[in-house]
């Protein structure tokens, strides 16, 4: 059952040093505020999982809290590179970053296997690609009916998954809508689940495209209006494309990055928006 708690307490209780942590949201509903809280609390040695690492993981990686990244596409969407991610991979700054790299189809199916509590998932993927040579979470299985060899990807079961949603009710049931990406799978695959929400409402009204996560699959809900910024929450906020563009020069340089984190995340409490 989800308790409705402060972001500080929920993060402190649910996210631990050394955890494998998934923060999902496919450009929509990215849980930035929770990432910032993790930075403020200095929770470290994390293995981060996310299909599209994006600026949120650039920030975590640049602060040195991350030892490994499980992912399939690491860019600033529509803008360019993730400079902190590149600096960590290429130069080991502020610490080396181990990679477990997949395709989107593979990552999505790793979460599906995780949510289904199966040890692996099957797809027709990775064929002819060098990707499988750099990871031990891609293998193959042979169809017992046709003899076809198919890719097998290992289940991904994060210790903790954090997502952002539009609404929770007072019992801690959650609804998100719009692009809902792989959030249901990431949440159901995890050992612990934290959901930040735009607001608490008396009753969840079913929405077209709505995904409901009942309170009994969630550990904590924290109310953080605007907690997806610079990403967005359909019906509440719009994507701050200007921020994504502004991030490029900030992240390009170690000092400007560190200053930005200190001024906007570490010092100020919830990041400025």
């Amino acid at each position, binding site marked *: 059952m989800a308790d409705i708690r402060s972001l500080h307490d929920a993060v402190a209780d649910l996210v631990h040093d050394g955890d494998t942590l998934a923060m999902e949201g496919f450009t*929509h509903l990215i849980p930035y505020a929770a990432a910032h809280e993790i930075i403020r609390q200095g929770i470290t040695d994390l293995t981060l999982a996310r*299909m599209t690492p994006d600026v949120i993981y650039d920030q975590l990686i640049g602060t040195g809290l991350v030892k490994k990244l499980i992912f*399939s596409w690491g860019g600033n969407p529509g803008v360019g590179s993730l400079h902190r991610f590149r600096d960590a991979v*290429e130069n080991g700054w502020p610490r080396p970053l181990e990679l477990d790299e997949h*395709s989107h189809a593979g990552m999505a199916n790793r979460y599906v296997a995780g949510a289904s509590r199966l040890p692996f998932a099957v797809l*027709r*993927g990775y*064929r*002819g690609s060098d990707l499988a040579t750099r990871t031990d979470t891609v293998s193959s299985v042979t169809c017992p009916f046709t003899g076809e060899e198919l890719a097998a990807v290992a289940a991904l079961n994060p210790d903790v998954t954090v997502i952002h949603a539009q609404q929770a009710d007072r019992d801690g049931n959650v609804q998100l809508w719009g692009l809902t990406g792989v959030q249901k799978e990431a949440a159901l695959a995890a050992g612990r689940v934290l959901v930040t929400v735009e607001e608490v409402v008396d009753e969840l009204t079913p929405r077209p495209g709505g995904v409901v996560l009942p309170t009994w699959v969630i550990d904590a809900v924290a109310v953080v209006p605007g907690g997806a910024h610079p990403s967005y929450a359909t019906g509440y906020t719009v994507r701050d494309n200007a921020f994504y563009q502004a991030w490029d020069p900030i992240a390009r340089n170690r000092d400007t990055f560190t200053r930005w984190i200190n001024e906007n995340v570490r010092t100020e409490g919830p990041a400025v928006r």
Partner: protein
Amino acid sequence: MTTTEDFTRDELMEVNAARALAGARTCFVGIGLPSTAANLARNTVNPELVLIYESGTIGSKPTRLPLSIGDGELAETADAVVPVPEMFNYWLQGGRIDVGFLGAAQVDRFANINTTVVDRGPDKPEGRLPGAGGAPEIASNCGKVLMVLRHSTRNFVRKLDFVTTLGHGSGPGDRKELGMPGAGPVAVITDLGILRPDPATAELVLTELHPGVTVEQVRAATGWELKSADTVGVTEPPTPAELAALRALKSAGRDKA
């Protein structure tokens, strides 16, 4: 940007990329140049084109160019929004998509793609690119693949530093041997012209030049000994309507960004 008459080379690339979508029913759209091309196609040669984005939207009809693959308008204007695993399993792997439209960082002569790492020399660490995203399975499962990228020896290389996404492998037959359902890359549209795989060898050859571009310019911008087709055509210059549509699309994007 070099301009030729009243349009840029980028515009030539974008207009020809859009034209390549004439007749397609469904297109799996990568962000960036492919998204520009696919949205332009909807406003010109193929108003009924069904745009499919990996964020889960089927039949998006954005009024401006999305900055990201998950911009709100993609979902709000879609016929259906599906979870990401369903998109990759039922729709892409399910063989529902006619054309996959991809960009690339490095391409080789068999239209194989690298978007993972580049070798920057013996004393330097590998240069990091964004990674695979949806491309390996898009290239495998779509009916056919179109590619769009700017032409330079940095992009069109003799040998890939890493094969992220298989195009035609090492020649004809490789895709079939690997059990890939789709036909693979059928055209690479650049700011200089269009390359297509030779049916006999699967090697990319120059089949069309954009107006004002020479074969020598294309060869100089290609990292391998680029061959030409028996007859090299010249693409039609953009029509005023195409240019107007393209520029409107881009400025609408800028206004709202």
